[in-house]
């Protein structure tokens, strides 16, 4: 019997879901509060740990959402084909690459 490769996507889904469950409300609150500006975010993004955090949030949130949305299509009876795959996982890949390059470009 063919072994499924779902674990790869599911692990990313799980990591993103756990991260979102823990930090998403906090991140939203901080950005709504408005006390944070360019100086603070730039400082965070030039810090190695800060970079890791920002990258994890941006990328893993997308991998989590992509997996859940893709499988929810099946729940709605929609046949998830290549277009759906691109809109879900494709965007997650793109977002991961854009975040990585942006954080790299920001430097230290």
């Amino acid at each position, binding site marked *: 019997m063919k072994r499924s490769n779902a674990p790869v996507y599911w692990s990313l889904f799980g990591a993103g879901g756990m991260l979102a469950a823990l930090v998403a409300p906090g991140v939203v609150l901080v950005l709504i509060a408005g006390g944070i*500006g360019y100086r603070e975010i730039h400082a965070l993004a030039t810090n190695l740990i800060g970079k890791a955090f920002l990258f994890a949030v941006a990328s893993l949130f997308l991998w989590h959402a992509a997996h859940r949305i893709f499988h929810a299509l099946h729940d709605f009876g929609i046949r998830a084909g290549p277009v759906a795959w691109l809109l879900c996982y494709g965007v997650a890949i793109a977002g991961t690459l854009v975040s990585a390059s942006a954080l790299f470009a920001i430097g230290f």
Partner: protein
Amino acid sequence: MAARRTYTRPMTGWWKRDPFFIRYMAREATAIFVYLYAIVLVAGLSALANGQESFEAWLAMLRSPLGIAFQLVCLAVFAYHTWSWFVIMPKTMPPVVVAGKRVSGGTLTGAGVAAAVLATLVIVALAGLKP
């Protein structure tokens, strides 16, 4: 003996049949907002890489009435994500035994939600301590 002729019922609208399924669909739907919010964050990182002016334009967009409304909806949706995530989490784990007793799923959920509350406080506090 009469011939067999089984009847198969359709699955259309299955999730509307029971409140349990509606809650499940709501849980899955939280992903739409995680997706959109993450795209906004990626746009923000991109803007940050393009410099102060670009980033402040992104911040201004967040602070627009539509931006605030979107973030408030996200806040509510993410709170539901946190809750529903820790409700289902115990199902993915083998039994957790503490002091010879099996920890109930409800306790594990509570622990998860408590961790999320703590993480929220830490994030808000750290943001308050500006460099």
